[in-house]
């Protein structure tokens, strides 16, 4: 049998009504748990994996795929509606998505996220099926110096989330970088900035910081405005569905987000967040509506959401072709596969084609089910916003703390949640952007570790950083991204841009 026949056979099995139902149950459960702020796909899959054990192999594989995609997608809904990212890969979604929801365009934002996730999931899963061996070769070329160059590029693009003041953007970023230093230094095993407190040895959890700064900081800020502003947010202005203009502005970002997210997800040290940052920056550079960025640009939701889902499928590339679990989620999936007698590794495609293609077919079906489940629900989700403020925010804080408690029931963690919530509030009051703090926390350790690894391997030879073509190209792109806007600004266009950016609230 060739590739197509295997895939077709897998699809036929997966499309049986009972299996479709399992996919739907999986997607629903995955979304239900994944929607909790602070509970990412890793914990979602770990919690729900035992549920799948009770089914026959085909059914359980399908339900499992559904849980995985549901967990990945769940985070975006809260990001858009409540400005509370469910996990680190949907932080960027909150930037534009929540602004859209505030403006009564939550429906189109959720729709472009759902359809973008579907499109990206579809393309990336097909990519997994047909070009995985090629992608994985590229991913293995990435050593510490190439990753360091990628991080430099990511840092440069972060500036697109800075808002109107370079000073305040940089300050936010460096606060995040300072927080990133807390904990055991991975390369030397020494504790930094932990002050002898054991709970700090593992550093600041990204989800704790994100939930605190976004959900709690936001609630405090809204509360402190008192009775100014409307008691309810107008949930729907115009259509709840995407307009023709929305479609026209979404499809390119979906494809670009997929193209960025898939390869980065496939890289062993890539991670879904970096793809979303790069996608957001790309869309901001390419958009025809720069004035909308910061006020709810649909491209800023479509691109990162596609990138996020594409990288979820990308993670499966090294997992299935090399047996490399590159994220916590992948490590749990590996455990799940073993239940089905699947031993991921270089020989998997040769020794176990039925199961592999069954899994890929399941992923395609689960992806479709996600869309089936979520599109009709959008109208319902958007209604959440018309709940009166006292109950809405009481609910937000309940679920925000539920996620943190469920992931790590520790009083200290809740204390950090409160402290960072207050920090997020203060930063809002003084006009500091929030996203760069979280970005600094994520990118800081990656950049530092990769730099130090590169230098250790070369025994201190600095030229190693530019001794590979991939690294050089990435550094050149970073330099261009830094310099080109400066030139544009010098030519006068920048003034318009910064004026428009200043109109952000």
């Amino acid at each position, binding site marked *: 049998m060739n590739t197509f026949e295997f895939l077709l056979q897998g699809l036929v099995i997966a499309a049986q009504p009972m299996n479709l139902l399992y996919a739907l149950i999986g997607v629903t459960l995955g979304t239900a748990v994944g929607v909790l702020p602070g509970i990412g796909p890793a914990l979602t899959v770990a*919690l729900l994996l035992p549920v799948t054990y009770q089914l026959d192999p085909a059914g359980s594989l399908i339900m499992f795929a559904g849980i995985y995609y549901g967990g990945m997608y769940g985070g975006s809904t809260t990001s858009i509606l409540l400005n509370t990212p469910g996990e680190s890969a949907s932080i960027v979604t909150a930037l534009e998505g929540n602004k859209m929801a505030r403006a009564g365009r939550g429906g189109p934002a959720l729709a472009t996220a759902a359809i973008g996730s579907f499109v990206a999931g579809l393309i990336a899963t097909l990519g997994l099926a047909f070009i995985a061996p090629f992608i994985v070769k590229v991913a293995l070329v990435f050593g510490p110096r190439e990753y360091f160059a990628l991080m430099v590029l990511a840092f440069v693009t972060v500036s697109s989330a800075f808002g109107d003041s370079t000073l305040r953007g940089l300050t936010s970023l460096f606060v995040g970088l300072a927080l990133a230093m807390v904990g055991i230094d991975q390369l030397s095993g020494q504790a930094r900035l932990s002050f002898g407190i054991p709970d700090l040895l593992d550093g600041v959890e990204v989800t704790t910081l994100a939930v605190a700064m976004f959900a709690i900081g936001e609630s405090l800020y809204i509360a402190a405005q008192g009775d100014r502003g409307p008691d309810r947010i107008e949930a729907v202005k115009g259509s709840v569905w995407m307009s023709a203009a929305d479609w026209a502005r979404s499809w390119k970002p979906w494809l670009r987000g997929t193209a960025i997210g898939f390869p980065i997800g496939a890289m062993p040290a890539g991670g879904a967040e970096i793809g979303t940052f790069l996608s957001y920056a790309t869309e901001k550079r390419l958009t025809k509506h720069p004035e909308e960025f910061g006020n709810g640009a649909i491209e800023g939701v479509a691109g990162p959401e596609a990138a996020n889902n594409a990288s979820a499928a990308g993670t499966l590339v090294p997992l299935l072709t090399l047996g490399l679990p590159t994220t916590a989620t992948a490590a749990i999936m590996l455990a799940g596969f073993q239940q089905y007698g699947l031993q991921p590794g270089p020989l998997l495609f040769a020794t176990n084609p039925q199961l592999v293609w069954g899994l890929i077919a399941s992923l395609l079906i689960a992806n479709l089910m996600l869309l089936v489940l979520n599109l009709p629900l959008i109208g319902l989700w958007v209604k959440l916003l018309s709940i009166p403020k006292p*109950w809405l925010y009481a609910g937000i804080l*309940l679920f925000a703390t539920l996620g943190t408690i469920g992931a790590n029931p520790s009083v200290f963690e809740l204390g950090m*949640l409160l402290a960072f919530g207050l920090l997020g509030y203060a930063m809002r*009051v003084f006009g500091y952007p929030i996203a760069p703090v979280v970005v600094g926390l994520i990118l800081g350790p990656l950049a530092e570790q990769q730099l130090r690894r590169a230098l250790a391997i070369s025994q201190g030879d600095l030229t190693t950083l530019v001794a590979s073509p991939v690294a050089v190209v990435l550094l050149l792109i970073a330099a261009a991204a830094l310099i080109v806007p400066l030139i544009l600004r010098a030519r006068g266009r920048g003034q318009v841009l910064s004026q428009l950016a200043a109109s952000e609230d």
Partner: protein
Amino acid sequence: MTNGSKPVHVKRRPDGAALVIAAVLAVIAGVMFWDVSRLAGAAGYSQVGPTTVPYVIAICLLGLAVWTVFEAWRGDFPEREHQQLGPIFWIVAGLVAQMLLLKIAGFSIATGLLFAFTAAAFGQRKLWKTIPIGIVFAFVVWVIFSKLLQLSLPAGPLEHLFF
């Protein structure tokens, strides 16, 4: 809720609050210098050791502090709307109550209080009504996530009453 709160423009010259921010940044930098200076700089074969990056970040923070002072002096900080402190206290009290009661009273009671206090922050001050609502809601959430979805959420007397 205190009525008649109008946005008060607190633009001063120089901006006192911005100076405080600069001081906080400088203090963070100072703490980083102090902490990192105690580390053994075992860099191994890389000249960038565990202390290098913290030093760089601390220096940059100092630089940003100076820049902040400069902007504060020129009054370049954005205007701020008047903030009401009452609601802040309600929410913080709710989070503290949840944090302290979680292990003793269990998820439902602790989180129910957070729910009620947050509602109070937004003007729903009838605690005799909101606390029971919050506890019942939190209990339903506890049952769904802890029992059906196997998430480990602390149980207290209320949860043990039923399970």
